[in-house]
C-alpha cells in the first residue's frame, strides 16, 4: 500500500473516531436532559405563562407531552362534537376546513361535525376518516354578517339541549373561514375552554376591545379583565358550553330590546362570560392564529388559523 493510501486510511479512521466521540457526546447530553423528568430540569416553556392566576393551564407547544396525554384520553372513549357555520358565500371555506381537520384535528378520536348552512347542496363531499361523522343542518339565510355571527349562540344552545347531551362528551364551536395546519387534539379538552385572541395576547387590558358602554350586557369596566378571548373558537363540556351559549344568547336578547349591539357582537358577550365564569383551560394563540403566513416568536407552531379573505367579497353586507 502506498503512503498516500495509508494517509487516507488514517484520515478515515480519525474521522470515524471523531464521529464516534461526537455522537457519544450528543447522546450523553440528550440523556442528561431526559434525566430531568421533574420540576427544575424540564421546564417546558419559560418564555410564556403556562398557568393562569386561577390555576387553569394555558396550552402552548412544549407545555404538554402528547404521548402521555393521548394515551390517557384513548382510554376514555370520548366523542368530540364540532360545530361550524357556513352561510352565503362562506361555503367556499368548507373544503379546506374539513380536509385540514381530517388531517390535524383530534386524529384517532371520534369526531362528529355539525355543519350549519343555508345551502346544503354547496357542501363539498369530503372523505372522512373512520369514526368521523358529518351532519348538515339547514338554516335560513340572513342579510347581515353580524346577525349570522350572533345567531350562532342560540342555535348552539338548542343543538346541545336537543341532540348532543347524551351523544358527545365535549364540544368545540369553530369559525369556518379557517384551516388546520398543526395538531389540535386532546390537550385542548377541559370543562370550559377559551382561546386567547391572536391579536391581543401581548397587550395590556386597557387595549382589549371589550364592550365599554354600560348600557350593554357585555359591558366590562376599565380595570377588569384577564385575557381577550376570540369568538372564533371556544368549547368544553356539553353542560358548560350550554350554559355559556344560553347566557350569551339571553344577554344579546336584552341588548336587542335596548337597541344596542355590542362592539364585537357575540365575541364581546363571550368575553363577559369568561370574565365571570373562568375557563378551566386556555388555549394559546397557536389554536387560532392571525394568518398562516404571519409569524410571532411565541407561537412556535400554528395549529389553526384564519385564512385570508376579501371581506367585501364574502360578506353579505359591510
Amino acid at each position, binding site marked *: 500500500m502506498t503512503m498516500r493510501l495509508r494517509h487516507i*486510511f488514517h484520515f*478515515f*479512521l480519525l474521522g*470515524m*473516531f471523531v464521529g*464516534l466521540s461526537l*455522537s*457519544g457526546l450528543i*447522546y450523553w447530553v*440528550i*440523556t442528561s436532559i431526559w*434525566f430531568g*423528568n*421533574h*420540576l*427544575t*430540569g424540564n*421546564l*417546558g*416553556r419559560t*418564555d*410564556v*405563562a*403556562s*398557568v*393562569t*392566576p*386561577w*390555576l*387553569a393551564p394555558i396550552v402552548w407547544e412544549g*407545555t*404538554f407531552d402528547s*404521548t*402521555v*396525554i393521548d*394515551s*390517557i384520553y384513548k*382510554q*376514555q*372513549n370520548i366523542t368530540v362534537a364540532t360545530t361550524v357555520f357556513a352561510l352565503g358565500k362562506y361555503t367556499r371555506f368548507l373544503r379546506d376546513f374539513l380536509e385540514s381537520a381530517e388531517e390535524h384535528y383530534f386524529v384517532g378520536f371520534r369526531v362528529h361535525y355539525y355543519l350549519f348552512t343555508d345551502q346544503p347542496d354547496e357542501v363539498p363531499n369530503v372523505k372522512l376518516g373512520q369514526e368521523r361523522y358529518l351532519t348538515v343542518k339547514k338554516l335560513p339565510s340572513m342579510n347581515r354578517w353580524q346577525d349570522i355571527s350572533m345567531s350562532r349562540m342560540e342555535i348552539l344552545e338548542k343543538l346541545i339541549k336537543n341532540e348532543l347531551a347524551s351523544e358527545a362528551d365535549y364540544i368545540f364551536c369553530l369559525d369556518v373561514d379557517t384551516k388546520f395546519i398543526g395538531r389540535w387534539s386532546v390537550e385542548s379538552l*377541559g*370543562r370550559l375552554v377559551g382561546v386567547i385572541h391572536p391579536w391581543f*395576547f*401581548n397587550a*395590556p*387590558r386597557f387595549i382589549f376591545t371589550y364592550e365599554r358602554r354600560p348600557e350593554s350586557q357585555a359591558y366590562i369596566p376599565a*380595570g*377588569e379583565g*384577564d385575557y381577550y378571548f376570540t369568538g372564533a373558537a371556544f368549547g368544553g*363540556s356539553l*353542560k358548560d358550553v350550554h*350554559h355559556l351559549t344560553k347566557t350569551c344568547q339571553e344577554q344579546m336578547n336584552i341588548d336587542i330590546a335596548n337597541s344596542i349591539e355590542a362592539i364585537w357582537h357575540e365575541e364581546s358577550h363571550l368575553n363577559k362570560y369568561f*370574565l*365571570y*365564569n*373562568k*375557563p*378551566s383551560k*386556555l388555549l*394559546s394563540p397557536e389554536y387560532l392564529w392571525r394568518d398562516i403566513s404571519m409569524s410571532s416568536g411565541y407561537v412556535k407552531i400554528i395549529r389553526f388559523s384564519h385564512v385570508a379573505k376579501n371581506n367585501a367579497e364574502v360578506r353579505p353586507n359591510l
Partner: protein
Amino acid sequence: MLLRQNFIIILVFFGMVLCGLIYLNNNQCRCNQKIKEQGIINGGTDETIHPRKSRCNQQISEQGITNLEWKQNTFGLRSSPGLLYKQQSALVGSRTDVASVTSWSAPIIWEGTFDSTLIDSIYKQQNLTIATTAFALGKYVRFVKDFLESAEQHYFVGFRVNYYLFTDQPELVPEVKMGENHSLTVLKVQSLNRWQDISMSRMEKLEKLIESELASEANYIFCLDIDTKFYGHWGVESLGRLVGVIHPWLYDTSRDRFTYERSPKSQAYIPAGEGDYYYAGAAFGGSLEDVHHLTKTCREQMSIDAANSIEAVWQEESHLNKYFLLNKPSKLLSPEYMWRDINASAAQIKIVRFTNVPKNYAEVRPNP
C-alpha cells in the same frame, strides 16, 4: 496490516451502532396511563397487574359499583363583578425557575403561580366543606395541639373545615379553640405496635370514613400527617379532584433516584425508567370520590402484599406513588405544602406552608 486496520474500522463502526441503540432504547419509556379529569370517571376493566409486563395498559380500577351519593361540586369558577386584581400576561410566567404545569397539563402550585384574591373569591361562592383527617396514636398525640392551632391560623381560613382526628387516647386530645365554621370530631381507634402498621392502616380507616360519614357532607378531603405544623397559607388554590404533594427531598432528582418500591413482587412496584414525580405520603387529597378510590385501591394492594408477606419500602407512600403514576393527579402541590423542616431552606421554596416538625424517632415511635 490491512487486516488490523479493517478490524479497527469495524470496531469503531460497531461502537457507533451500539451508541445509537442505547439512544433509541432510552426513547421508549412509554406507558398507557389513566387520568382523573374533570368529568366522568369510566370504571375500567379489571386487570391484575403483571409486574414484568409493566410497559403498557395498566389500570387500577374499581371492582364493582359503589352506591354512594357524593356531594355534588357546583360547576364553574364563578368570579364576581367589580373584583380588582393585577392583570396576568399570557407571555410572562410568574415563576420562571420552576415548572408550573405537568406534562399532562395539571397545574403545579408554587407561590406566585396563583392570585389568592381571585381564587378565594371564586371558591367563596361555592359553599364548600373541606374534611381534614389526621392520625395521632401513641405518643404522636403530643403533636395535636400545634397541628390544630397552626391550622386554625393558616389552613383554609374563612372556609368550612371539619377535622377528623383518629387516636387511641381520646382523653389526651387537647382543647383547641376552633374558629367559626370549624369543627373537630375525635374518633377512637385501636392501638398498634408498629409505626409502619399505624401508617398503613390509615388507608383502610380513611376509606371507611369517607364511605360512612363524609360522602354527602364534604366536597373535598385532605389527609395529613400529624407530626407537622402550618407556617403559611394553605387555601383553596390546593383544591382539585385528585391532589398530590411533591416530596420535599425528591423534587430535584432524576426518577431513577426516586425511592419507589423496586421489587416486582410488591403491588407497589414501579420499574426503572417510569415515574413522573415522587409524592409524599404525608399529604394528599381531592374530591371525596377520587380519594375514596385512592384509599380503597391502596388498601387492596397492601392486603395483597400482606398475603404475600411483603411490605413496600415506604409503606403506604409506595402504594400512593404507584396509584398516582397510573391515575394522574389533576393538581400537584409543590414542596411548599410539605416541607422538610422550618429551618431548612431551598432556592425554589419562597414560602414554607406546612412542614414536618423535628422529633426524636426513638422517643415517639412504638418500635424502631
